[in-house]
C-alpha cells in the first residue's frame, strides 16, 4: 500500500562520507526510498508501465531543481504527487491520443487464485481507463493513497466538494465494473 517510508541517508563522496543533510544526497535517498510507491501511483494514473515510468522520471526531474526547498516541506510526497498529477493532466491534454493504453498484465503464476486476481486487476485497469481524468485521480488519491478529502483537494487544486463528487462517481463506476455492491464513500 501507499505509505510514507523512512529515507535512507548518507552516501559516499570523494571526501569520505557525505553528511546526510547534503541536499543532493538527500534527493537521491528520497528517490530510492519513494520510487516504489510513486511508481505504483504512476501506474494507477496511466494504466501503462512504460507511461508510468516516464511520468515518474519526469516528475522527479521537475522536483530535482526545487529539492532544496521541497525537502523542507512536511510532506515532500504531496508535492511530488501534485507534480505527477499536473504532468499527467498536461500530457493528456497535449496529446491528441487520449486513449488509456492498457498493458498486458504480467502472469504471476498458474494457480486459480492468481488467475482470478489477474482477471480482476485487468477489469479494474480497464474500468479506471473508462473514468475521466479527475475521477480517476480522485479515486486513486482517496482510496489508495489514503488522502483525506482536503489533502486530495489540495493536490488536485480543487474544492473538497469536487473531490467528493468525483470520488463518488468514480467509485460507483468501478464497483459496477467489478461487480461489487454499491456503497457510501467512507
Amino acid at each position: 500500500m501507499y505509505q510514507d517510508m523512512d529515507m535512507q541517508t548518507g552516501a559516499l563522496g570523494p571526501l569520505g562520507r557525505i553528511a546526510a543533510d547534503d541536499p543532493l544526497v538527500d534527493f537521491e535517498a528520497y528517490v530510492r526510498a519513494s520510487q516504489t510507491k510513486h511508481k505504483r501511483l504512476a501506474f494507477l494514473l496511466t494504466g501503462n508501465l512504460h507511461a508510468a515510468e516516464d511520468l515518474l522520471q519526469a516528475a522527479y526531474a521537475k522536483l530535482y531543481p526545487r529539492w532544496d526547498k521541497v525537502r523542507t516541506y512536511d510532506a515532500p510526497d504531496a508535492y511530488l504527487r501534485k507534480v505527477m498529477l499536473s504532468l499527467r493532466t498536461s500530457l493528456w491534454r497535449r496529446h491528441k491520443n487520449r486513449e488509456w493504453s492498457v498493458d498486458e498484465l504480467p502472469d504471476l503464476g498458474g494457480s486459480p487464485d492468481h488467475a482470478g486476481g489477474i482477471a480482476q486487476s485487468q477489469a479494474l485497469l480497464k474500468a479506471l481507463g473508462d473514468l475521466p481524468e479527475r475521477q480517476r485521480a480522485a479515486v486513486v488519491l482517496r482510496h489508495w493513497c489514503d488522502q483525506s478529502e482536503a489533502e486530495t483537494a489540495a493536490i488536485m487544486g480543487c474544492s473538497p466538494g469536487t473531490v467528493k463528487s468525483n470520488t463518488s462517481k468514480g467509485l460507483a463506476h468501478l464497483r459496477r465494473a467489478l461487480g461489487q455492491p454499491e456503497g457510501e464513500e467512507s
Partner: protein
Amino acid sequence: MSSEHRDPIFDTLDQLAGLADGDVAGDRMPDIRRRVRATRRKRMAGVGVAAAAVVAAGLGLSQLLPEAAEIDPAPPVGDLGQNVTITAEAPYSDQLRIQVAVEGRSTAYTGADGESVAAGPLSLEVVVDGEVVDESPAAEVSCEPGGEVSTYSVTYPESSRRSVVAPVSGPGKHVVEVRAPYCADGELVDEVTRTTVTSRVGEPVVQAESVADVDGDGRPDTVQVVSPAVGEQGDWILVAQLADGAILSEPLPDTSEWGLPEPRDLDGDGTAEIVVIGGGGESWSAAIYQVDGAGLRLVPTLNESGQDEPLAYGVSEGTPQNVTFQIQLIDEGFMSFRFLDAAPTRPAAVDVRRWVLADGTLTLQDATEPGCVDADFQLTFGAC
C-alpha cells in the same frame, strides 16, 4: 481513513498497483539529471534571445524586483456577470506564480440527474504564453435557462498560500490568460481574462568560497563557486579573486551542482591547486584547476596509457564493490580504490591506485598498493 473502515476497492487497487513492482528500474539519477539538463538547454535557447531583448530595453541585469500584474477584468453580462482577477508575479526569470480570484453572480447548472448544481465557474484554465499550465476540468453539468441565481467568490488555487507555478522560457513579457466560463441563464459565457507580467534576470549566487594562495605569490586569494541567479539556468562558474586584484573565471564542466572549492597542493610545489567536487551521493565528478598566467586552467586527467580518464565516480546500485574503482581525496591526494570483497564489511581491505599530478597533468598510476577503508569510509594506506 483507517484500515477498519477502508473501502474494499482499496485491496483491488493495491493488488493492481503492486503489478508495477515487476517493472524494475535501475539507477534513476542519470536519467533524471539528463532530463534536467535537457530542460535547462531548452530554456537557455529562450534565455539568450530574451536576455538580449531585456538589455536592449535598458533594463540591465541587476533589476530583481518582480512585477505585479495589471488586471484586465472580464466585463459583466447583464445583471449576471463575473470578475476574474489575476495576480501574477515573476519571482524568477523562468517562472511565474499565479493566483486567480473569481467573483460573480450567475445561475445554477443542471446536473446529469437533473439536480441543481450551485452557480460558479464551470471550469478554470490558466494559460501562459499560449500553453495550458493548470486547469480544473469541467464538471458534468449543463447550463439551462431558469436556474437559481446566486453569488459566489472562489480562489484558485483554493489556498491563498498556494500558487499556480508556471515555467516560462526566460526573461521578458509573458501573457497570462484565464478562462472560467459561467452560466448566465442558459448562456454559457466563456470570456478570456488576460494580463501580462515581465520576468527579469537576477544576479548570480556565490555558493561556496575558500581562501588560499592559488597563484604562488604567498598572499591569500579568494576562490568562489558561483551559480546562476536563483531560478536561472546556465553554467556554474569558478572565480578566483587574486590578492593583486585580478579576477579570473572559468565555466565549470556540466554537472548538476558544484560544492566548496578546496585548495590542495596536489603536486607539492607550494602552490595550491583548486579542487571542485560536483554532483553528489553515488555519482560525482571532480575538476582541478591551476592558475595559469592570466587564466584558470582545467587540469587534464589521464589513465596510465595517456588516454582521458574522468576523475569521476558513479556506479549503479547493486554493483559488486570489487568491480568498480571508487575515488577519494585524502591527505596524499586523489586515490582510486577497489574493495577486495564483493560485499565488504568495513574496515575492509582495498587495492589503491594513486593519481599523480606532474607537469600540469593528473595521471592515474597503474601500480596498486594495499589500503584499508574504515567504518567511516576513510581510506588509509596499509593493511587493516
